[in-house]
C-alpha cells in the first residue's frame, strides 16, 4: 500500500515536470499558430490584405470583424525593412509580433502623429551597425528592434460602421513593407 502511494507521489511530481516542459515547448512546436496560418497565404516581406472575416471563413480565431487587417510576414536576414502605412480616417494601428506571435511593439495613428506612419524594422545587430551620426541627424526616424529575425507585422484600420469597410481596407492595402538594402554577404 505504502509502496503504491509512494509511486503515485513520484508520478505526480514527474507530472509537474511534464506539465512545465509541455507549456514551454508548445509555442515552438505549434503547427496551427497564427504565423503558420499566415505563412500559407502571405508571401515574405510583402503587405498582404486579408479577406474580411465572416462566419466560417476567418483565417484566425477572435479576429475583430470591424477591423480591416493586412499583414507583412517579415524576414530580416537579408536586411532591414521599411514600413509605410497611410492613416485611415478612423483609427489605424501597427502591431509587431515575433515568430511565436508575441506582441513586442505597437503604435497607433495618434501616437505616430502624422498622415503616414513610417517605421524601420531591424534586428538589434543591424541597428548597431548604423553609424551613430546618422542615428542623431535623423531624429524623427522611428526604428523598431525585432527580437527575432522573422515575424509578423499586423496593420489594422477600423471601419466604424460596415459601410466604411472598403475605405479601411483600401488604407491597409496601400501600406508597403520593403527591404531597404540587400545584404553584402548574399
Amino acid at each position, binding site marked *: 500500500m505504502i509502496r503504491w502511494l509512494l509511486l503515485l507521489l513520484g*508520478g505526480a511530481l514527474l507530472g509537474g515536470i511534464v506539465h512545465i516542459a509541455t507549456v514551454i515547448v508548445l509555442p515552438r512546436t505549434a503547427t496551427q499558430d497564427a504565423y503558420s496560418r499566415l505563412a500559407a497565404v502571405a508571401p515574405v516581406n510583402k503587405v498582404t490584405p486579408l479577406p474580411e472575416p465572416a462566419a466560417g471563413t476567418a483565417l484566425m480565431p477572435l479576429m475583430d470583424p470591424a477591423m480591416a487587417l493586412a499583414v507583412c510576414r517579415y524576414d530580416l536576414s537579408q536586411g532591414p525593412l521599411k514600413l509605410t502605412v497611410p492613416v485611415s480616417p478612423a483609427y489605424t494601428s501597427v502591431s509587431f509580433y515575433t515568430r511565436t506571435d508575441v506582441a513586442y511593439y505597437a503604435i497607433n495613428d495618434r501616437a505616430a502623429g502624422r498622415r503616414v506612419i513610417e517605421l524601420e524594422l531591424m534586428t538589434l545587430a543591424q541597428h548597431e551597425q548604423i553609424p551613430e551620426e546618422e542615428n542623431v541627424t535623423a531624429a524623427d526616424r522611428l526604428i523598431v528592434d525585432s527580437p527575432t529575425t522573422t515575424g509578423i507585422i499586423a496593420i489594422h484600420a477600423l471601419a466604424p460602421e460596415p459601410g466604411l469597410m472598403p475605405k479601411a481596407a483600401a488604407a491597409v492595402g496601400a501600406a508597403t513593407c520593403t527591404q531597404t538594402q540587400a545584404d553584402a554577404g548574399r
Partner: protein
Amino acid sequence: MRLLFGTLFTLLVAAAVGLGATYFALTRGAAFGALRIGSWTAWPKTGTADADPYARAAIARNGTLPVAVGDGVSFSATTDDAGRPLDGRCDVDIDGVTPAARFWTLTLYGVNGELVANSVRRYGFTSEEIVRRSDGSFGVTVGPRASAGNWLPTGGIERYQLALRFYDTAVGVATKAGREVPMPSIVTRSCP
C-alpha cells in the same frame, strides 16, 4: 515484475497529471495578471513582450494574434454577472458604460473564437454605430430573435463568448480592477 509494473504506473500517472494540467491551463486561461471586472476578464500582459509561458502557450495553441498593449486591450466574457454560462437561446442584456477609449468594438464569437452565422450578418457593434441613451450609456440585447434597439444575434447557438475591445485606451497593464474602470453589466433576462 513488480518493478516493471511500478515504473509503468508512475509514468502513466506522470503523463496523465502533466498533460492534463497543461490542457486545463490552456483551455481555462491560466495566464498570470488577469484583470477581472464583473464578468469581464482581460490579460493585458499577454499583449506585451513580457507575456508569461502560459500566455505564450495559449497564443500558440489558439492561433490568434493577441491585441498588443500599445494598440488596445481585449476583454472577454463567457458568463453573465450571476455566473451563468452565456446561452444563445436566451435574451441577454448588456448594459452600462465603458472605460474611456477612442473606439471600442463588441463582438460575439462561438466557444472556439469563430464568428457566428446569422441572417443579418451582424457580428458585433462599434462605439460609433451603437445607439445610446441621453446619458451616454447604452444597452445591447443579445438573443436569437430580433429585438428593438441594439440587437446582437446569436444564431441560436448553445454557448458563446463576448469580446469587448478598447482601442487607444489608458486601460492596460497598470490598471487595477475597481471603480475607475466601469464595465457594462451582463444579465440574462429570459430563457425559453
